[in-house]
């Protein structure tokens, strides 16, 4: 195999300089679980590789004044086990748990999963309902964009070639908020999702407000379900309300038929997962 030019900077500023000079024809790798397989199978010639795995300044999970900040190089395993995430973004910990095997979760990073812009990425629907903001940095500056505006299609994003995704942040979940991530795959673990449903809302008694719902694997990118959220706004949870919400979310799901599942099954299951998530949350939620 021909040798691929690889840069392994030790500082973020150096990585950004390399990106600004090279621009096209360079792929960023961190855990590299996806790209290395493509390179080794010669499915893709990345031109050159920018290996950011030594930028330890991008490895952190912290909570600052109600905001949870996750550094780009944080692995799925670290997220799944983080006391901060378990408390302040529990559904993200749930999604990180099912991303892959322990070995893959020890390598793969959250920023890699997001930047890959796969519509089936399990961490993205939870990050969307949490209201996450992505920090994109280049040698000329920094910008912060909502995660919902990041991916434009499978593998495509608004990130410029000279930018690096360095941080993901979201408002910490408060005690009066409920949330869940439910997904369906061929197996419980180690399978790519057919459908994923993330939900977050404030909940007083059983009355829902500030509802946010995101759906994975049912469109070219992760999408929100605004009509379902609007229907639930101000309603008290009941099995009847959940059933009606499920009917609406099925119509908002825009699935296709592919190797993993069919259009109609995926759309129906988006509703079923919403009902399942509600049942799980309200069984344990006092009020």
């Amino acid at each position, binding site marked *: 195999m021909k040798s*691929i030019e690889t840069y392994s900077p030790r500082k973020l500023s150096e990585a950004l300089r390399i990106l600004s000079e090279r621009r096209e024809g360079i792929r960023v790798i961190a855990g*590299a679980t996806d790209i*290395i397989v493509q390179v080794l199978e010669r499915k893709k010639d990345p031109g050159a590789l920018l290996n950011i795995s030594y930028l330890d300044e991008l490895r952190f999970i912290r909570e600052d004044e109600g905001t949870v900040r996750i550094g780009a190089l944080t692995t799925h395993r670290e997220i799944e086990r983080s006391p901060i995430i378990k408390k302040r973004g529990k559904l993200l910990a749930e999604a990180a748990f099912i991303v*892959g*095997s322990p*070995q893959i979760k*020890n390598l793969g990073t959250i920023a890699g999963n997001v930047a890959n812009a796969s519509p089936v990425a399990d961490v993205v629907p939870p990050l969307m309902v949490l209201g996450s903001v992505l920090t994109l940095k280049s040698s000329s500056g920094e910008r912060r964009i909502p995660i919902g505006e990041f991916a434009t299609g499978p593998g495509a994003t608004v990130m410029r070639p000279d930018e690096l995704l360095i941080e993901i942040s979201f408002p910490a979940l408060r005690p009066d908020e409920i949330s869940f991530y439910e997904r369906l795959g061929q197996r419980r673990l180690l399978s790519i999702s057919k459908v994923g449903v993330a939900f977050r809302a404030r909940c007083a008694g059983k009355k829902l407000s500030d509802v946010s719902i995101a759906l994975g694997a049912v469109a070219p990118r992760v999408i929100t379900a605004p009509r379902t959220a609007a229907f639930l706004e101000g309603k008290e949870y009941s099995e009847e309300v959940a059933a009606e919400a499920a009917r609406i979310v099925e119509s908002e799901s825009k699935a296709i038929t592919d190797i993993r599942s069919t259009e109609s099954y995926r759309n129906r299951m988006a509703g079923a997962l919403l009902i399942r998530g509600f049942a799980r949350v309200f069984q344990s939620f006092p009020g």
Partner: protein
Amino acid sequence: MIKVKFVVNGKNVAVESSPTKTLLDILREDLGLTGTKEGCGKGECGACTVIMDGKAVTSCIVIAAQLEGKNILTVEGLSADRIGKALQDAFVDSGAVQCGYCIPGFLMSARALLEENPDPTLDEIKEGLSGNICRCTGYVKIFDGVRLAAARLGK
């Protein structure tokens, strides 16, 4: 070509390599450590599992460019490791090994598991070994082996 320095089973090593040569190939070809096996070659079957900085990883998708300063434990280093030795003995005593090809990977995942969680439940063992595939045993005796090792280590 790049030069990387790292530690394998407690020994310092320096390797000159293509930046995208895999840790698996470096272990087997450059360092002669052939205990680590290649299965799928794309991080799915777990046969090539080693421990890197305390964490189980599939060595077939870790590349030379990522190895600087890393601390690697392979199956060859297990007999000098308290948990590793207990696992090896327990796998033998439980009949956990049939063809044996997947076993180095299972031992490494089990070593990472017991280091983090010395007294795992059966479900925790299943989750800890979920990234390793065995096509002979049906897993039952492998789980028995891990439980036996945990029980012996806890005494």
